[in-house]
């Protein structure tokens, strides 16, 4: 058991933040997840997960610019940290190992 444990939704959010490198803030993450994964995500659940990931150290955040559309409120940009990158990689390796361990005959 690794010390990194990512829930399914956490993993998806983390990956999306990585995909949007440098451009990842609330709305863009939502849009990206909705278009790529075809699933509705509420601002509330996204923001809770982002908080949690940041608290665990997988993400860093900073305030960015504001736009008129946001009523003058600043965006909060998220970036995957080195630590987060490691967690993602580890998760992926675990998956890969499992895939590799499946006997060929199982999926015939």
């Amino acid at each position, binding site marked *: 058991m690794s010390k990194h444990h990512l829930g399914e939704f956490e993993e998806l959010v983390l990956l999306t933040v990585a995909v949007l490198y440098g451009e990842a803030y609330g709305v863009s993450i*939502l849009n990206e997840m909705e278009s790529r994964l075809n699933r509705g995500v*509420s601002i509330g659940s996204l923001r809770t997960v982002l*908080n949690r990931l940041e608290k665990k150290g997988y993400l860093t955040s900073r*305030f960015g610019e504001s736009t*008129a559309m946001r009523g003058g409120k600043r965006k909060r940009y998220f970036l995957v940290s080195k630590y987060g990158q490691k967690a993602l990689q580890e998760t992926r390796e675990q998956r890969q190992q499992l895939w590799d361990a499946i006997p060929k005959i199982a999926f015939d």
Partner: protein
Amino acid sequence: MQDKNIKNPPQWALRFFRWFCLPEMVEDIEGDLLERYQIKYSQDGISKANRYFNYQVLLLFRPGIVNYRKFLLFQNNTDMLKKYLQFSGRQLLNAKNYAVINIFGLAVGIAACLLILLYINEEWSYDAFHENSDSIYRFTTIETEEEGVVRHLANSYSPLAPLLESAFPEMEQVCRYFPRSLSVKNPENNLLVQEGRFFFADSVFFEMFSFEFKQGAPSTVLTQPNSVVLTQSTAQRYFDEEDPIGKSLLLEGGVDVRVTGVIEDIPANCSLQFDFLATMSVIRKVMGDWVLDPQQAWYYPPMYTFAKISNQADAERIESSMDKFSDNHLAPKLAEQKSFTMQPLRKVHFEALEGDLETTSNPSVLYILLAVAFLILTIGCSNYINLALSKGVQRFREIGMRKVLGANNRDIFTQLSVESFSHLMIALVLALLLVMITLPSFNNIIGRELSLWENSNWHLIGGAAAVLVLMGLMNTLFPFLAVSRFKLYGVIKGEQSGTAGAKSSGTFKNSLVVFQFATAVVLLIATFTIQQQLHYIQQKNLGLQAEQVMIIPIRDDSIQNKFRLAKELLLGVPGVSSVSAISNFPWDRGYYNFQSTISGQGKLIDANLQTLLVEEDFISTMNMEMMDGRSFSKDFGSDGSNAFILNEAAAIKFGIKDLDGLRINMTKVARGKAKEGEVIGILKDFHLKSLHHEMEPVVLTVAPVSYFLDNFVIRLQTNDLEQYINQIAAVWETEISDRPLEYFFLDETFQEFYLKESRLAKIFSYFAVLAFIIAGLGMFALAAYLSERRMKEMSIRKILGATILQIIGLLSKDFLKLVLIAILIASPLAWIGMNYWLNDFAFRTNLNWWTFAGAGLITLIIAFGTVSFRGLKTARVNPVENIKQA
């Protein structure tokens, strides 16, 4: 810098969000929300965007985003909370009497209230468990007899259902329901039982009503022409653990039925109570085709007709057209006598009609009980409020001191509420415990199987909790608000504490005491009156001797055919002193009615006579008394065919003074034949119905044919019945009938007439005692409190020469005044209420002044005892001790 293109989302949602969100997240989340809102707005329009926005805000209201600090009463000081609990414990110990009275009184009040509400809840839930309960109606009959006598019957007759079906296609289902008493035999083990709850119904029955099936499917169980459905316990009675499905049962007359389904035992709150339910066609084999004949069956047998009408508008339309239904669809002669009305299923339990299968509930009794529950609760709460007001004043100084030492309003509020609510939690637990302990005996009184822990009862417990919260708030807010009104300095010095509370709440407190005792007095008078009426019923000369009279229903014409022989056989049993028979008992099926003419003494009266058809020895067997003339007798060989006896009421009604030459001609008595003869006697009035009913004019005559005789009436010599019953049963089962012996005792049946009243008497007596306990406790606490405050005054009086009696008098004078006022208020109320209740009886006791005086005296004694007990303590204390105290 608002851009015109920027749309504003719902402001209240936004404000709500800003309020609850953690401050460090407000900005960027709000930005995200707005941005998404703009996108939604341009894509889907304002209403969808608004909905989306509100929904997102709602979803944001979750841990991690909500600023939990806003919801904490105590910021970061669980230590203080612990202290508060400690204070509340000390408060309890410090004033044990008050606390016990407070908590106990409240708990008893709530428990009593819960008990009654449990009962009322069950009553109001009658028949509600059927899925279609709101769309099922029962069709009841209004029979108009000659002389304008109108009877409202719960039943109708078998031809009604097909008529309704063809007349109103909008009725989805119509179902007949027919009770019978049948002997049932299990051919495998020859178990033979007379089953009193064997019912027949049309095949839609189980689709219309929702019973829980253990085996079989509701839509198919009754489709076979010989199918029968059993309740689970019946199935167990006949087949033990074996699978009953497909097993055969033999009904009387050798009719064979097969078990096609088993249902769970029928819940108590159901107006349809049966053990067996067979499909309708079986009845043809048991009783003959005529039972369902569309022409013949309009008079007998009575059947119950239900219909399901889902559409409310349809139902209303049908209901309004029921007036004309019998005119339009029945033969003119029938239409004159019978019309039908629709009764919603949910009302079946609350409208007492003639021929109801189950006992009904009188809604006004339920309302009375509801009022009693509310009153008891209020009495309990009054104590609490009273003591809260009095003790609250005492706490001013403490609160003031806390304030000086730096407590802010919120702290004081928290402390007071922790204190009251922790006390109230104890009260709630105690109340629930009390309910659990007393529920079995309460069930015993009301004859029910109630349970507290049922889903349908959770809201009652919730209600009890809500009452407690209200009390808690009151106990918290009163001292809290009162203190904030006064100057801190004065509060600590104690300047305000003496006068403020006493003056501002004195009248209120007094009226609560008056209210408590008035309620107790009303309950006491009610108990006395109900007991008095029950006593009156016991003592009432019924005009017959009901003790040691055994009734055996005759259910077979084979017995009727050999009636003489059967009578001789029964007379041969030792212990039987006389045997006779009667057609039917008026409390059950009413009287026979025959169109008759009374003639003689220059009179000629046409009348519809209510008649009891009896056997010759009936009057002597029942020990009825003759007022005039003679009873039926074998010495006059013709009594069997041409003699009539009137009761007193009939004699009065028809203005008959003496019997000379008086004759009655009764038409169509049996098989269309008339019966004509002289009136040989007048009976003293006798009661074969409950005393709720007026004395009715009745004629007795000997049944012209034995098939009228449906009940043996047997007088036994002694009360040692066990042994004789066995002997009668032996004779009955070997030589008279192939059915098991069924019997009941007349006096027990008479007792059952007053079951509701005797239950009410018990309930009222218990609640009257409770009311006195709670009110007495409250008065005790109040007296204790007041005499404590007047301790110094009393001590000085004592030193100056007042006697103990004078001091007690001084202390109790105010209270006794209140109790007197309570008695004065309660008496007329009780008088009105009990008069109303007694009006239910045609034969009733009168309200006595001494009932009221007695109740008042008891109340005064209790109140005086309570107060002087406390006063004595004050009066006997060494005055020096009190005066020395600072």
